[in-house]
């Protein structure tokens, strides 16, 4: 057997294949026709090394977090960096997301000619974020903020020879430079009035700020945060950013937009000076939270939907900050990061074959008194559980609004489950408490853990008075909820067109002529 050696035998490359040719009964080996060269695995060293390094960093941040929890050592390089609870939390989070993106991209970008460059940029971006959350010197903070934005713009324009990707990178770069400039102006103002060159120094001295200075400085920071978190009306950059490779988008939506919330939490003593600033934050946050969802409702492409969803989620997060719950905002941006990174990384699995009749429009159905009662009770219990575990909403303040949202989510899930009349009653009534209540408990644990970590920040929770605005927001949300469930707003062609136009990417980032596309 195997005495006649033939050319191109596949046995001369790769591992020994058990048997296939040996079992030949006629004693001849198969002649190979038109053999193809094996696909080479370009084993690039840089991606592998950086992936190991970033996971190493993650483990390092876990160690730092453990030390920090035992006893805050108050690490700092005087005047340059200061490591506090926010630093430690964000370090852990951003290195985790970055690690996921590194590991994912090692396979996802296989064969991409600029793979090494991609990894270098993602890694550099990770370092920039780490500096942003650790920086104490105002100049270092502003510089790291700018670097973070510029690196993200580079990732949006990752595909070199593709003019639309370059246009998208330019668009986002303008926004990011704008937000960095606003921060620079605000910090300069604060430095000139307080004389402190460090963030800790400024925050210690905010008591002496005049109202005008406080409003101006806070205003600049809030607008910078809005740009960073892609809040309406600064959302266009994020809806034009899908030229970024999918893992870069995941990192953007899980790690980059968050910086808006981090900025507000970091400068909480500045933004909480004037209650009107806080109210304004609640208003712009709520506008995006509602607007993002409405924009999402008219999107037909998956990444556009995810982009609009981020606009809404970041609006909610900023609203939490505006209500004075900075810890809740940080918890939200982390949990949202998990959610949105997952959604992006799995965006290829969303294509389904549907029929026009099966696309259910609205879900308003009456399922009897028992179902109604169970639904309401489940929702209220969910809200109560949330309020007790997190302390939000137990006293009459802005936190009541947050409890309201959890109640709504539970209520809605219960309603949805109850409608499946084909399923056994135990499932219909039991599933939501069984799944949702533990989920609320997990959330509460995350929230409490983060609040614990952030305890050394000057301001973590600033109780805000319940105002008419909060009531209006609650009413508007209920109105939108009912509208989405019943579809009453869908009669307005004008609204539809307005939403569609508001959510369009910048037109020079659209690939209308596919001959422009060039991956290399």
């Amino acid at each position, binding site marked *: 057997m195997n005495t006649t050696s033939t050319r191109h035998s596949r046995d001369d490359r790769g591992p020994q294949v058990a048997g296939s040719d040996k079992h030949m009964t006629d004693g001849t080996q198969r002649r190979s*026709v038109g053999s193809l*060269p094996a696909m080479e695995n370009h084993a690039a060293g840089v991606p592998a090394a950086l992936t190991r390094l970033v996971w190493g960093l993650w483990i390092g941040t876990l160690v730092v977090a453990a030390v920090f929890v035992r006893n805050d050592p108050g690490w700092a390089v005087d005047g340059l960096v200061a490591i506090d609870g926010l630093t430690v939390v964000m370090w852990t989070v951003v290195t985790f997301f970055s690690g996921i993106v590194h590991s994912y991209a090692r396979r996802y970008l296989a064969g991409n000619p600029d793979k090494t460059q991609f990894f270098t940029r993602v890694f550099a971006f990770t370092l920039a974020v780490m500096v942003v959350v650790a920086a104490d010197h105002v100049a270092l903070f502003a510089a790291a903020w700018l670097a973070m934005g510029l690196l993200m713009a580079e990732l949006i324009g990752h595909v070199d020879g593709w003019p639309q990707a370059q246009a998208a990178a330019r668009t986002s770069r303008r926004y990011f430079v704008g937000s960095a400039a606003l921060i620079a102006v605000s910090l300069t103002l604060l430095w000139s009035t307080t004389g402190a060159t460090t963030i800790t120094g400024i925050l210690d001295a905010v008591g002496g700020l005049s109202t005008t200075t406080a409003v101006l400085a806070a205003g600049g920071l809030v607008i910078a945060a809005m740009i960073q978190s892609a809040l309406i009306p600064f959302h266009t950059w994020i809806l034009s950013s899908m030229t970024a490779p999918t893992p870069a988008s995941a990192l953007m939506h899980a790690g980059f937009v968050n910086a808006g919330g981090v900025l507000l939490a970091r400068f909480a003593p500045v933004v909480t000076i004037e209650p009107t600033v806080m109210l304004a934050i609640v208003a712009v946050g709520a506008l995006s939270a509602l607007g993002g969802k409405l924009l999402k409702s008219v999107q037909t492409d998956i990444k556009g939907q995810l982009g609009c969803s981020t606009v809404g989620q970041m609006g909610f997060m900023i609203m939490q900050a505006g209500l004075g719950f900075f810890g809740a905002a940080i918890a939200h941006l982390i949990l949202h990061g998990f959610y949105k990174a997952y959604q992006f990384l799995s965006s290829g699995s969303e294509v*389904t074959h549907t*029929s026009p009749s099966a696309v259910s429009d609205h879900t308003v159905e009456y399922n009897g008194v028992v179902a109604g009662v169970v639904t309401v009770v489940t929702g209220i219990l969910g809200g109560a559980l949330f309020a007790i575990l997190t302390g939000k909403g137990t006293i009459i303040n802005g936190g009541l609004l947050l409890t309201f949202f959890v109640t709504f989510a539970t209520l*809605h899930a219960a309603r949805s489950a109850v409608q499946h009349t084909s399923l056994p009653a135990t499932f219909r009534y039991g599933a939501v408490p069984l799944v949702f209540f533990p989920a609320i408990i997990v959330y509460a644990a995350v929230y409490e853990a983060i609040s614990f970590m952030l305890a050394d920040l000057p301001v973590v929770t600033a109780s805000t008075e319940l105002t008419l605005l909060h009531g209006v927001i609650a009413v508007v949300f209920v109105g939108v909820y009912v509208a989405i469930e019943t579809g009453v707003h869908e009669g307005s062609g004008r609204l539809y067109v307005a939403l569609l136009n508001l959510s369009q990417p910048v037109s020079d980032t659209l690939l209308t002529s596919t001959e422009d596309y060039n991956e290399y």
Partner: protein
Amino acid sequence: MSTEPTLDDSIDSAATTVGSVWPIHSFVTANPLSGFENQPFEQAVTQAADLLGGRGYPSAATFQQALESGQIDPEILESELADRGYEADPETLLERMADADESTAAGDSDTAADSDAERVDAILTKWLPAFLDEGRAHWSMPNREAGFYSAFRALADHDSEIPDAGVVADLPESPTAAIEAAVESYPESQWEPLFEEQLAALPGWTGFIKQRADDEGDWQAEYPITLDGYLAVRLSLLDGFGVDLEPESSFESTAPDTADELAAAFLSAWEATYREELVDTVATESERVAADETATEGAAGRPDAQLTFCIDTRSEVIRRHIEATGDYETHGYAGFFGVPIEYNGYETDVSVDACPPILDPKHRITELPTDDETQTTHDRWAGVREAAAEAIETLQANAASAYGYVESAGSGYGLALAARTLVPGRVHDLLDAIDDAEPDSHEFCEPMVHHQHTYADDLPVGLTTDEKVEYAATAFDLMGFESFGRVVAFVGHASETANNPYDSSLDCGACAGNPGGPNARVLASICNDETVQEKLREQGHEIPADTVFIAGEHNTTTDEIELYDGDVPASHDDDLDQLRVDLATARENAAAERADAMGADTADSRSETERRAADWAETRPELGLAGNASFVIGPRELTENVNLNGRAFLHSYDHATDPDGDALEAILAGPMVVTQWINNQYYFSTVDSGVYGSGSKITHNPVGNVGVYQGNGGDLLTGLPLQSVAAGPDDPYHQPLRLSTVVHAPVDTVEEILADHEELTTLLDNSWLSLTVVDPTRGHDAFHYDGELTWTGEGDIEPEPAAAEPATIPADD
């Protein structure tokens, strides 16, 4: 009024140059230049380059690689070049080709008119997906029932991006009137080229509209769109922006330029090099088989089992490995198993056309539950899964609940994120375990094959006995099936991939991008029918009483073969046990070959292929039909001792059982055309990934459940992604060669068939594929089709002495 019919005609005729684009959930691998097939290939690609901007040939770098790795025979190349009047050495010519490429690439520039046209494109690519969306948006475009033109007309006033000038400012009620108003200032002779240019401006969306209007599916019935309606909107917008519509004088560059001529020579030489090796092998094997047959006449025993696979190139690999494990006979047949059905699976809202796109389904087959207990288990699982999915869907959709949902579920997503990224193989095992707990529908359902005397979607439900007999007989005739083993399996195929919008491009092309298992079940069920067997025996198909037909499905990602053996009598348990063991061995070996080809650096290729099937970060779960280059029509004996490296479509055929050529006629008119579509799709997706393919997956953005964008949006992408055909840019894995068909039959028979089929000679004469006949009745000589029903070959075509039997030819010459 009288102009209407001619206007419609000229629109239809103008649209022929744009290839149809199928919805991505049922990806059909078609030739993107199908509208040019009535022209010679070289001319077609030049014209397509003018109109659509795509490359027609591989790059100089690709040829360079092929030349260096010995895939282009220098002698053949020299003669191809000499034929076209080039004497310089190949390296110099490749440099010239590369220089010419660069200078065309640099020639693009934007003008003011372009930017207005671009604004029109931007507006259209906003409204087209809004209208054509198939259930993705929560709030769909209003008034879609009225059709695209009317729905657009109703909203145009609200859209501030639309200019308040020209036709679009006050759209007439009928699209035809709008078109006429927009083009009235142009001479009528220019209308058709004008329409052609405008329809080719967004070829992805135009092709999709064209396909949707032709196919008349559910969505089209509910929300109609026509090319007229689209063109009316487009022309009105252009008029509103005051864009000059005068068509560029086309055909200016029909004289082929040097670079194209050189590329054509290199391509032909590359193809000829591959073809010669293949044809030589088939001819040699043909002689050997003829000699063997005389030597062992009548001694052939009954095989352990016979397995029929799809003609798909991936079947070649698994068939080779199955044959190596025992006395198995394998066959190749179109993967829809000859039964053109519309299939409605258990619990699916939508039925799919499980037949090649060149056919219309003729029967409606529904999957019906037969085992109550298993069904109940399944339904319970499925019900919970659906309820959860729906709850999540509505939670995410609503502004009041989405934020609470994300906070409650975020931690869970974090865990899933880590698991799927860091241990994708484990995730596969976990999903497998869940999958096992929930019974698959084929475990408790049967396709309803019997005729029901009812209709669904205008199709008869089930098949009559006569139809069943016909489908079974056709299958055996086409494959030249003469004797039957104890087990005869029909094995369809489907891929298994995660996070892949292009998953259906990896499914069975003969089932229009759907899994082939259901069709295999239908044919197996037909063949097990006592009445059918009785009639088949009357027709001369001697099916022994102990033959059992079973169906199965080949997972082309992991090479696992699942047999649907629910109804197999206990008498065949041992046969099936042995078969299963051997299939497992074959799977290991095939997976090793695959993993090797994909450059996987692992000893455990089985886990590697399973990881690829489940890994959400994997852009190359399998290589699909990449590499396809030939179609061999003949008995398996001709290729069973050959490793064709997964590059050949194989259709079983025995000229001896087909004296009048009817079976061959069916194969050439059906499967050969489908393989040419697939081959051309791979070719063009490889030579121009941006225009004919769909570019890199890393920036893909699926839209409306119908297709994919690059990045933020724009035109719909049409072909295969870069990762399906290449290791990297300029590093194609798929070798872009046109299909070489090799037929094992008397050349006269083939010529007669071609003479009757103008659609085939059109394709062949225009070089969209090539045809070589290895004639067992003429000394196993090869005859290459040379256009216009002429042949070139070793022997001249003169009638051989009628007495010359293949067996008399000496085995070694």
